């Protein structure tokens, strides 16, 4: 089993490497024959990795009898799964494979961490193991994944804008989408993320009404941090709608938002005491 999970990690590694290669085959000579092959390998590695990861999540679910979110190693694997899912959906809809060069490595790091610390100890109190858990965590992780996609589009925007401003030679590689497309899709991902996050938070707060045996407090580090993240994205959308803050401002905001997501997800767990922490 462990071996198969290692294989999944390696497939993700290969996918990341090929995605990186895809970006660096920028030099035009010979690229036209090589690049489609690299892109093909990268995409199929990602798909196979995704399928294997799905199997593992299903397996853990069966083993534990509830949604595998009670260990942080499982949760981070689910995080990788959500990122890959959002990426594959975007590729299906837009065929913008370059995005993978930015988000697949994030998924790889997540799954690598998951593999390195994989244990069998469940840390979540019994009463919390139910479908509320599934809805709450799945929604929030999908929101995170959408934010990471927005982050990827933000990076692509900034690189492309820099290329256009610097008037560099490799301007016509036709690898990165146009500024308008990166901007628009990044915005859509942000909106999707905010909707999912809002739903996840609502489900979570409803859930508290049903918890009997576990003491609950509202001033929880994770809760506050999540609200801060949510606020960053909502403000960003507002500025864009009313003051035309699109383009590189939106791109920087997506990067700040990504940092906030990381703080909320990893930072709080490591450094602060929270109801949500895995211990």
């Amino acid at each position, binding site marked *: 089993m462990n071996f198969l999970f290692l294989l999944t990690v390696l497939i993700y590694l290969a996918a990341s490497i090929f995605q990186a290669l895809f970006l660096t085959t920028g030099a*035009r*000579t*010979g*690229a*036209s*024959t090589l690049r489609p092959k690299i892109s093909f390998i990268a995409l199929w590695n990602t798909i196979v990795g995704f399928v294997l990861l799905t199997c593992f999540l299903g397996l853990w679910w069966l083993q534990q009898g509830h949604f595998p979110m009670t260990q942080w190693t499982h949760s981070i694997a689910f995080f990788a799964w959500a990122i890959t899912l959002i990426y594959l959906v975007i590729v299906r809809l837009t065929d913008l494979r370059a995005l993978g060069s930015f988000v697949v490595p994030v998924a790889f790091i997540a799954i690598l961490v998951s593999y390195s610390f994989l244990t069998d100890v469940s840390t979540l109190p019994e009463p919390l193991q139910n479908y509320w858990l599934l809805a709450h965590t799945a929604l929030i992780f999908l929101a995170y994944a959408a934010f990471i996609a927005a982050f990827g589009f933000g990076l692509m925007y900034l690189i*492309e804008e820099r290329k*256009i*401003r610097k*008037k560099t*030679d490799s*301007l*016509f590689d036709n690898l990165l*989408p*146009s*500024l*308008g*497309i990166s*901007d*628009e899709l990044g915005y859509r991902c942000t909106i999707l993320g905010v909707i999912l996050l809002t739903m996840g938070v609502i489900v979570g707060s409803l859930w508290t009404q049903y918890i009997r045996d576990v003491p609950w407090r509202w001033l929880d580090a994770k809760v506050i941090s999540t609200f801060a993240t949510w606020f960053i994205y909502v403000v960003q959308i507002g500025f864009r709608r009313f003051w*035309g*803050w*699109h*383009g*590189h*401002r939106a791109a920087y905001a997506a990067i700040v938002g990504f940092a906030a997501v990381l703080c909320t997800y990893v930072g709080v767990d490591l450094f602060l005491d929270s109801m949500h922490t895995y211990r």
Partner: protein
Amino acid sequence: MNQIVSVGTSHHVAPIEFREKLAFSEEQLIEFLQQLRESDQVQEAVILSTCNRVEVYALANSVRNADAAAKMLVECLSRYHQVSVESLKRGCYLHKNLETIQHLFRVISSLDSMVVGESQILGQVKTAYDLSRSAGGVGTVLNRLFTKAFSVGKRIRSETTITSGAVSISYAAVELAKKIFNTLEGKTVAIIGAGEMSELTAKHLVANGVSNVLVTNRTYERAVKVAERFNGTPLAYDSDLGFLVDADIVISSTNAPDYLIKRQPLVDIMRKRKRRYMFLIDIAVPRDIDPDVSKIDHAFLYNIDDLEAVVASNLKDRQQEAVRAEQIVSEEAKRFYNQLQTFQVNPTIKALHQQFREIADTELQACFYKATLSDQQETAVASMAQAIIKKLLHHPMQNLRCAVNDGDVDHAQYVQALQELFALDVSDDNSEL
């Protein structure tokens, strides 16, 4: 043995004054093809006549060496166009067999063109080929050659990037616009100062989806005239340039000595248009647009030098790719040449076999008639005859095929010798081709 030869001239070797003398109109082309065919020395021919080149590809009929065939072609051309043979020899290149194939493949792949990677030549060759074919100039060999050439041309265009990257200023502007906007559909281009260059750029932009064209010019009449061409809106010249609020792409090419578009006014305009992207193209010298404009968010400024740098870099990339394309051309040409030769040798081989078989059959019949043999004995004798034929022909055939394949020995001479020594009647039937 048939020889493929070509005589031609192009912008590489001769000036326009010479090329125009050799150019063929459609009617002349058909007439000349007729003459060639009547001369009885040319079996098939295709004539390619464009503004940059005039080339005649011909399959010479039973001419022992290619030089004679080429000489004959030059003479025909000289007679038809009233140009002396000497000046033709100076201003033309001559290709034979493998060289001809290689040259045609290079031409069709645009490696011989003025701008490497241009796409027109493929269509021009296609037209020339169709024309020559409808005039009855094309038979099996040239058909095979040109069909192969078209596929090589396509292969090179798909496997290399010699066709990618804009190589003119106006196309470079279009490609840049595509890098900025998610789509050009519904975008507005404003032309300030209607010149030839800005008009051409606008034309390409409109062809790529830009829907609104605003034109302003110091003389309003000219603005009206240009606007009409694009179904656009002429605007009276107005120094505060308020119409830029609606413009996504601005092309400026006036003779104004100072900057027309300065930073601060444009900042205000950008605010009014909610910071939607603006792509400014300054093709005027002296410049019309303050270079500081490029520091404004979402305003992207390219001047004539920037665009020229883009074009130069694209051209350099094409040159690099051309090296790869040349390799493909020479591989394909060699392979095709070998195939062609094998196919051309086949009728002789077949005729030789047939002759031997016929002799054996006749002799066997005579032998069976004279001596009374049992069935078993007859079979034995017959198979002995077959074996003798096979053994006799083994070395000649093997050596002939070797000669075709390694190309050191002139197999045409072998074929000629075989045909003459054995009095083979090889009617030029290339039906297998």
